[in-house]
């Protein structure tokens, strides 16, 4: 592997880690937001 191959590998690994983390974080935010909305919605309802 030449110099630019190593450079590409290093920057590629970092890009995958940073973008992958962001995608995962957004998915977790969406999931937690939905759970919280459901819980807050339930709290407002009266028990039959």
């Amino acid at each position, binding site marked *: 592997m030449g*110099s630019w191959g190593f450079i590409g590998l290093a920057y590629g690994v970092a890009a995958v880690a*940073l973008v992958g983390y962001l995608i995962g974080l957004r998915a977790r935010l969406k999931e937690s937001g939905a759970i919280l909305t459901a819980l807050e919605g339930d709290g407002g309802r009266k028990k039959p």
Partner: protein
Amino acid sequence: MGPSRIARILSVMAGLCVAVGLYLGLVAAPPDATQGEVQRIMYLHVPSILTAYVAFTATFIASVLYLWKRDPRADAVAVSSAEVGVVFTGITLATGSIWGKSTWGVWWTWDARLTLTAILFTIYVGYLMLRAFAEEPQAAARYGAVLAILGFFDIPLNHLAVQWWRTLHQPSSLIRPGGPSIDAALLVPLLVNLAGLLLLYGYYVVERTRLERMRQRALALRLTRGRRG
């Protein structure tokens, strides 16, 4: 509850700064006189570890605040910053390994700096596992804070390792007594990339803290409901 105004500003600033940093590091900066083109990995490797240091320092401060005030907001910042710090330490280890293979001929060696960085990574992965697997949330926060405070002391040890033990890793060229030892043509791209990664860290932490606050709120609601029966 969407991203805050500060998160949006940080994301735009980080995107711009990283784009400029990539251009400066990969195109505009001259190749190193000794290592040639492969030295361009430095523009990613060095800012990554410095960003990780900032992340774990923030975790340390937030953990001390949590133990002192028992404020769940401080705990949310501590765990968020630690998680982002682990990402940047992982990038440091990976890029360092690739750079090592191209210059030293090996992917890994038990050099003092490399070993202490691996220990730093392990400490904070352990911290996140402790947080994830503890059954009682307040105990998880308390034990996590203690581990984060103890683990923080690996940072000065890691930074000074290249001065105390002259092994394979080169000495610090940015944060050192007497100022940076590298030429301005290489220093400017390095600092722009550092600013870009710090802004990115800021954006990730703001968003990750928002997630942790949502989880804390959901847990509080569940507990309140459980008490009511």
